[in-house]
């Protein structure tokens, strides 16, 4: 009882603090952006589903040619991204955008750099990743027959998902695992909850700049530090999207399937325009979350900025150069120490490194739920 009262008081104080940090609405001015806030608690996923989903996430049999795992482009040791400017994709092709971390994906309302996937429906994102030619090129029917050939999966699907391995249960299990990957012990969240010592003085200065002079808060706001809106920044094109044949043809193939006109002649990544087909959206990308950002270099949709320092400098110069560049972007005139403070703040957004304790087992494809040789004429499937 006493604890409850104390918590309520703390929460009320916190709310005030958050409003104060955000600066509050200016009288007569534009509405202020949603305040920064700690990640809300989520209802925990069922552990047995998370466990099954984790195994599938690391299983290369969940791709067409049994050679590509989710974990190849979402590697726990690389912040659950892949550390490369442009992601690899399925063998035979190369992808044309940067791999995003899947940490905190449970909170994201839109998925992918162009926001073409609904974050509320994570199993459908898993379906997309499995079946699209550029990621797993997986026939869902052969996938479930593979699981049924592995006695450990047969058992785990029964106990965790309530029946035989099928396509939907596979998607749900992987989605459960992905939702379970949320930031833990984030210094900035601790600070927001009242632990003044959780972040350095420099980081606090960076936070003030983030919400003030640097104006980052205009787009990077709320608990995920993102407004999830499409924005044109003028990040330079990554020339390799168009100079590496396997990337260029992959890009065209995706644009063709999205119904983008004149896809044969595009020499820029049109981003969210591929979804909206509105000219004003050419070259816009959905604002990314800044959580765990220190682990997921290189940055931007095409990995063109190598470090957080580069990113801050990019914004300091008012972004790049394009006709429909977001009006919010203007040169900031930040000093060297101010830029360093911003970077220090951004680093407080990373929590514990989320490395599965059984990573070695998960990476050993021979040990991961091996196939059985059934007595073909006798066994019942």
């Amino acid at each position, binding site marked *: 009882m006493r604890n409850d009262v104390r918590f309520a008081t703390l929460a009320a104080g916190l709310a005030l603090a958050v409003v104060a940090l955000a600066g509050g609405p200016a009288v007569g001015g534009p509405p202020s952006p949603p305040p920064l806030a700690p990640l809300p608690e989520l209802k925990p996923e069922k552990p047995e589903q998370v466990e099954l989903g984790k195994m599938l996430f690391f299983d290369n049999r969940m791709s067409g040619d049994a050679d590509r795992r989710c974990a190849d482009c979402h590697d726990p040791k690389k912040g659950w991204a892949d550390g490369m400017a442009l992601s690899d994709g399925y063998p035979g092709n190369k992808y044309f955008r940067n791999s995003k971390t899947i940490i905190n994906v449970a909170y994201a309302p839109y998925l992918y750099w162009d926001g073409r996937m609904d974050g509320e429906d994570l199993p459908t994102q898993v379906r997309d990743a499995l079946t699209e030619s550029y990621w797993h090129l997986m026939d869902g029917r052969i996938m479930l027959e593979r699981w*049924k050939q592995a006695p450990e999966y047969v058992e785990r699907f029964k106990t965790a998902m309530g029946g035989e391995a099928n396509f939907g249960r596979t998607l749900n299990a992987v989605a459960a695992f992905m939702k379970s990957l949320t930031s833990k012990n984030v210094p900035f969240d601790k600070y927001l909850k009242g632990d003044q010592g959780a972040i350095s003085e420099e980081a606090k200065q960076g936070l003030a700049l983030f919400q003030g002079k640097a104006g980052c808060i205009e787009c990077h706001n709320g608990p995920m530090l993102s407004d999830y809106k499409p924005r044109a920044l003028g990040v330079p094109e990554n020339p390799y999207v168009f100079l*590496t044949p396997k990337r260029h043809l992959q890009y065209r193939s995706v644009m063709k399937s999205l119904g983008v006109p004149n896809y044969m002649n595009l020499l820029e990544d049109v981003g969210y325009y591929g979804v909206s087909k509105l000219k004003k959206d050419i070259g816009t990308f959905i604002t990314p979350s800044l959580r765990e950002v220190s682990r997921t270099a290189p940055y931007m949709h095409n990995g063109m900025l190598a470090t957080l320092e580069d990113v801050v400098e990019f914004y300091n110069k008012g972004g790049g150069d394009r006709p429909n560049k977001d009006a919010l972007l203007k040169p900031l005139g930040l000093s060297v120490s101010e830029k360093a403070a911003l970077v220090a703040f951004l680093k407080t957004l990373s929590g514990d490194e989320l490395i599965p304790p059984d990573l070695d087992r998960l990476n050993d494809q021979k040990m991961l739920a091996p196939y059985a040789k059934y007595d073909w004429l006798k066994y019942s499937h």
Partner: protein
Amino acid sequence: MARTRSKMIVTLLMVVAVAGSGVLVAQGAEQKFVELNGEKFPALAALGPPPIPMDLPQKRDARGFPVLDDPLVQLGFLMMFEGRLTGDGSLSCATCHVPKEGWGLSSAISRGYPGTSHWKNSQTVVNTAYLGKLFWQGDSLALEAQGEAANTGLSGNAKTDLSEERLRQVPEYVKRFKEVFGTEWPILKDAWRAVAAFQRALNDENTPFDRYMRGDKSALTPKQIKGMELFQGKAGCIQCHNGPMLTDEKYYNTGLPQQEEFLKDPVLQFSARWQHYQRGVSEEIYRKSKTDLGLYFVTKVKDHMAAFRTAPLRHLVYTAGYMHNGVFDTLEDVVEFYNEGGGDDPIQRDFGFSTKTKRLKPLKLTKEEKEALVAFLESTTGKEIILPEPKIPDDGIFPAALAKFGQLPPEKFIEKEKKKE
């Protein structure tokens, strides 16, 4: 000369129409029949020129047979070897239709896409121009459709959007497709049309058997002639293996033995289950069946369970193993199987009723008769068709991309080693 692509459907319909009238006979030739046990069957005959779609003319020789020296055919030949058509780029048509293996595959069961297995024997590409029903269960009715279908699922796992863009990334192909089809960019359907044209030019029609049927009575040995008599008489092969292609293109369950690889290979086991699942059979049949259901997968008629299209008996010398599951290594094994009246019906075993053809009865052939039959079966093979493997052209960078971004050092990739069976 550019070929227009607008009449493709018409072409397909025409091919179907011709095929639908039974086994193809040379134009102008009169259909002859042989009688056996009171039934009439199309007579064995030499091959005439194959039918060619009217909207995609091919160069022919003086006798009317399509020739290899044709830009369309040469493009199709390239496409046969082109990995870019398949899902991860690691396979091509020629992976399972190897020139040195009779344009089929010498293994009993064909290869599958990496991480899966095929579950049937790979058939030769030679003489397919004459067939109206393609695949062992007649899934496709035209070569154009067959190639495309073979590039999906457990054989090719391709996505058309991607395969098409891969072709467009190759300057050599942009040029050659434009020359042959007149399109600005290669179109995937045209790749399959080119492959079909190549197949129509890949014929083994000057075999001892064909020469004999055209009047050269010295082309067959006395033993082979005796084999042919048995074929049309005591052995009764003609009941199903008739006409110039030695097939009636109808479907029979012969009670073929189980392919033993199924009993031990997990990848083959789940791939076989996949075949049932993706064909949309009922749950009961999906769970009970332990054999390839053949024509049933197409028609869902119970009488068609485990029935397969009568195999053409040409080019046999180069195309062992035999039967839809490659269970027999030699023609002697095949003759012996029929001598015993076929095998035990797997449908009886799995479902308690039989679909095995009533035509098969023990033949009581002597050793000499069996040898004569094998000798005859060898007479329908001519020269081995070996073509040098073509050089696959490289990807290129679009000139407009080079103009915009300039020349940069190429990206370096560490490719994961591909798993190949």
